[in-house]
């Protein structure tokens, strides 16, 4: 038969008809629908039994109890708060909730890397083995030590509330270099204040849970001041009826309507940087109207009344200063922008409400503040009598590790001359605090001996150090940069050698004390998973280096592993027979009193270790300030008596007392008519951890839109500059120039520009890189002349249309 057109058409029609009548099309439709539900490119999570492992979060210093949910014991899928833990009672912060994104981050470093090209070239990193990397490092360290220039080694670490802090200190003491520096923190200031006024080298702590009136001078309380989860819990209490005393009142003094200001019962807007002036104004009213705790002040405070200095000269006391005309309500009102009547009202309320406390700082960049201002805020607590036994202000207690520590400390001191860690050669400040800025400064200007090896541990100063170009400039003078970051961050990018640490939850860590918290705290964080990469805990690296260096260094750090070292510390803690483990629900640590000791509920070190690695924490009662006082006078010193012997000897009485003395920002006011301030959010990680994608998702589109960062400006400021919502603009400060967009907000004080912290990374992956601007690149650091610490309060700025 000829297969003609007709036959073909018939065949085609028949085929179509036949197919339609067959089950095939239906089957196909069904199959494709099923296929669309199981696309191969749609990940199907592997199934398996789900278990829960309790541990403690070490992403920040907050010490939250958490539990990890694991599938098949090897895949962590979720982190939640541990309901038994007294700090967070089941709650968690966004960083904790997103923490697994660090564990599984694509930007983790697989194994040790060596830079084979010029510093900063991403393509130059070549993998090397751990033994190769450590051998090379040991050679360098051994040479410097044998050449008698151990000072050529330094370390910048972000660890301050864990045992790595102590391990580094041991290492540097034994090695003989003073070069151990910490990333700045507001607790440096709280420590300096305590040192000055109480003679104790511990940060101040505040029993905020028990307060019924909180006067906050720019403290970013609900944004996670100090220990974030603890602050959230305290805030929750203020909302509830605290111990039958009625809800606490929160008064927030701040130039911007921050989250804390919005959550406060009263927001007191002030001119940026005049918070301390307002505090002194309040002090003025309290003193003038006799609203202070006269009994406490007269018996326990030096420097309130006129006082005699070390040379026998009688000097004015704080009373005289506070009463001076400069701090009279009218004067203060004119400079702070707060009504005189309101100042008086605040003073009276603060003075008359039971359990009132003043807190401050940490609002802008978690950095130290101006010591005169810190002391001014502190003075309010002194006037209020908050430093009495059982008062609302005390010190963060030490964790008693002593017996074991002493043992090895002795051998550590055996070989090397005593060095003052963290001190900066060549600079002289009366009361040295965190010396990182001094160190970087001298490094940039040329240090003798030159710095040959710089470790960077648990920190990302190239990004997160305010005025980060200081760090970048200093790096040029460093012979060999060793990064210990688990992630390819900005600092690791500029390193010569990367010795990747475990990510959080992969190794043993601990938490020693909580910032701003009056009770003693210790917790151990056990790993929830085996390390996913070829990484080594930085503690183990330090121990291995020590062993290889031998001699007194090896003797000072005799432990086989960091875990061993922690066990040793826990043994010492157990041996102290102090404190107890919070192994039950609803233990209220804020009720602890220094006068009522707790009895230990652990048998020995092994038992304590077991309990601690079970996710429970150890706690002990707060410090009794009175018995802890360690000043020459035996009193709380409002006058800076201690600094006189340290090279500061001037006529002006004010220099020895809390007073208002802003550190002037650089730049010409005409060229830079505005002030730039930065702000933090609990939902935007701004220190050494880059914001995880889960949290980036929660950012407002008026904070970040595509890759543009928005600065908050009041419409009355933006209007005359010709800007409207979303306008593109150039923000210029003496530190640099960046492209931003403008978000008009009534939360912003006219004349000020507010910039979020935590954006503008140049490293990491597409989820992080290039989003917005790093506030640290435009803010300016002013060095406090008394403590030598870098402070940040405001930077002069100019905003113009792009």
């Amino acid at each position, binding site marked *: 038969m000829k297969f003609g057109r007709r036959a073909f058409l018939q065949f085609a029609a028949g085929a179509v008809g036949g197919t339609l009548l067959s089950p095939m099309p239906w089957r196909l439709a069904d199959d494709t629908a099923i296929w669309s539900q199981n696309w191969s490119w749609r990940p199907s999570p592997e199934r398996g039994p789900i278990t829960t492992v309790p541990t403690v979060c070490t992403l920040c210093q907050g010490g939250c109890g958490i539990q990890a949910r694991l599938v098949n014991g090897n895949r962590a899928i979720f982190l939640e708060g541990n309901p038994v833990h007294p700090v967070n009672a089941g709650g*968690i912060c966004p960083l904790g909730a*997103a923490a697994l994104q660090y564990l599984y981050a*694509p930007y983790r470093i697989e194994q040790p890397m060596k830079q084979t090209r010029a510093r900063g070239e991403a393509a130059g990193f070549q993998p090397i083995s751990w033994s190769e990397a450590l051998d090379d490092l040991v050679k360098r360290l051994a040479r410097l030590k044998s050449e008698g220039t151990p000072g050529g080694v330094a370390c910048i670490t972000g660890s301050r509330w864990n045992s790595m802090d102590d391990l580094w200190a041991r290492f540097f003491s034994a090695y003989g270099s003073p070069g151990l520096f910490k990333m700045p923190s507001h607790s440096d200031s709280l420590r300096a204040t305590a040192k000055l006024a109480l003679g104790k080298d511990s940060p101040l702590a505040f029993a905020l849970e028990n307060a019924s009136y909180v006067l906050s001078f720019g403290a970013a309380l609900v944004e996670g001041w100090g220990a974030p989860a603890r602050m959230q819990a305290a805030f929750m209490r203020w909302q509830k009826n605290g111990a039958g005393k009625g809800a606490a009142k929160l008064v927030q003094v701040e130039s911007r309507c921050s989250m804390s200001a919005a959550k406060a019962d009263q927001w007191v807007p002030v001119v940026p940087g005049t918070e301390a002036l307002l505090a002194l104004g309040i002090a003025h009213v309290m003193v003038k109207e006799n609203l202070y705790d006269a009994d406490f002040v007269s018996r326990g405070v030096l420097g309130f009344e006129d006082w005699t200095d070390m040379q026998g000269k009688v000097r004015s006391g704080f009373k005289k200063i506070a009463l001076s005309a400069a701090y009279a309500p009218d004067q203060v009102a004119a400079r702070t922008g707060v009504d005189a009547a309101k100042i008086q009202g605040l003073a009276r309320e603060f003075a008359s409400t039971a359990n009132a406390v003043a807190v401050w700082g940490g609002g802008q960049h978690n950095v130290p503040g101006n010591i005169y201002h810190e002391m001014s805020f502190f003075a309010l607590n002194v006037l209020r009598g908050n430093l009495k036994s059982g008062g609302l202000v005390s010190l963060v207690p030490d964790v008693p590790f002593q017996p074991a520590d002493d043992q090895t400390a002795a051998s550590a001191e055996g070989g090397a001359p005593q060095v003052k860690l963290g001190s900066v050669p060549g600079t002289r400040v009366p009361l040295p605090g965190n010396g990182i800025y001094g160190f970087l400064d001298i490094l940039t200007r040329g240090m003798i001996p030159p710095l040959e090896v710089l470790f960077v541990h648990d920190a990302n100063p190239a990004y997160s150090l305010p005025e980060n170009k200081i760090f970048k400039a200093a790096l040029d003078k460093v012979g060999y940069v060793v990064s210990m970051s688990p992630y390819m961050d900005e600092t690791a990018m500029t390193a010569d050698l990367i010795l990747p640490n475990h990510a959080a939850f992969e190794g043993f860590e601990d938490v020693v004390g909580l910032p701003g918290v009056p009770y003693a705290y210790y917790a151990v964080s056990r790993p929830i998973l085996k390390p996913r990469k070829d990484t080594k805990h930085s503690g183990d690296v330090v121990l291995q280096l020590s062993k290889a260096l031998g001699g007194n260094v090896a003797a000072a750090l005799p432990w086989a592993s960091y875990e061993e070292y922690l066990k040793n510390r826990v043994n010492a803690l157990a041996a102290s027979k102090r404190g107890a483990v919070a192994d039950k629900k609803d233990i209220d640590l804020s009720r602890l009193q220094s006068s009522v000791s707790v009895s230990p509920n652990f048998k020995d070190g092994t038992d304590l270790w077991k309990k601690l690695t079970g996710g429970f924490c150890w706690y002990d009662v707060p410090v009794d300030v009175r018995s802890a006082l360690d000043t020459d006078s035996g009193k709380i010193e409002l006058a800076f008596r201690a600094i006189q012997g340290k090279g500061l000897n001037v006529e002006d009485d004010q220099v020895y007392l809390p007073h208002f003395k802003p550190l002037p920002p650089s730049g010409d006011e005409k060229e830079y008519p505005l002030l730039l301030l930065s702000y933090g959010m609990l939902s935007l990680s701004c220190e050494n951890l880059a914001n995880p994608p889960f949290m980036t*998702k929660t950012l407002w589109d008026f904070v970040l839109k595509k890759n543009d960062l928005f600065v908050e400006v*009041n419409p009355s400021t933006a209007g005359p500059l010709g800007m409207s919502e979303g306008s593109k603009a150039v923000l210029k400060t003496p530190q640099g120039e960046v492209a931003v967009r403008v978000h008009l907000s009534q939360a912003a004080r006219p004349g000020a520009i507010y910039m979020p912290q935590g954006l503008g990374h140049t490293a990491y992956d597409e989820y992080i890189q290039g989003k917005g601007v790093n506030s640290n690149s435009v803010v300016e650091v002013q060095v406090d002349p008394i403590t030598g610490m870098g402070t940040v309060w405001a930077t002069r700025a100019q905003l113009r249309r792009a």
Partner: protein
Amino acid sequence: MAIDLDRCTGCMACSVACQAENNVSFRADESDKLRSITWLEVYHLQNGKEYPDYQFTYLPRPCMHCDSPHHSPCTFVCPVNATTRDEVSGIVNHIYPRCIGCRYCIVACPYHARDFNWWDPKWPKSMESMLSPEVSTRMRGVVEKCTFCHHRLLKARSKAYLDGIDPNEATYVPACAEACPTKAITFGNLLDPESEVAKLSKDPRAFRILAKLNTEPKVYYLSKHQWVHKLGDNSF
């Protein structure tokens, strides 16, 4: 569910915990909020006044699981029965493999509680390891939304059954309420007058968003500020 806005500190832990619990996908750029998949979206409310009388608050918005008679606004319109309300638990669920992606439910929902998968959900390879097997991942072209962590309910019911308790008595907490560090989110059975959440719903500070539309949202908000009440429900 009751959410105390006075206690909410806008930390976003609820929203993050929700994403982690429910395998919510994320993209490199999430700043287009109109295409971002966020089951528990947080809104920024402000009182419209000028500095220094300005005030703002955050408002976390899960799905309201509307209790309107017969149907929720969304379940009423779904042509393929992909979204339905379980009349026992009151939870509005969404069956992803059945959804045809017509987005009628998105249009029907006045709370913007529903999000569409505009892209193929994709995770960085290493982060696929942190996906939970308890919640299925979605595919492109379907709608998804808050389920009040329905899988946790199922788990609680199974557990209750094994423990010999009536599964209908089983209680559970969704991830957001669990995560909240200030315990601003209370979850429970609104029908049980003794429950914490039922009591909160009768608090003088309580209000619901758009109560006037007769959607009968099962999420109550608490605020001491009248301006927040007004912004939540313009019928005040």
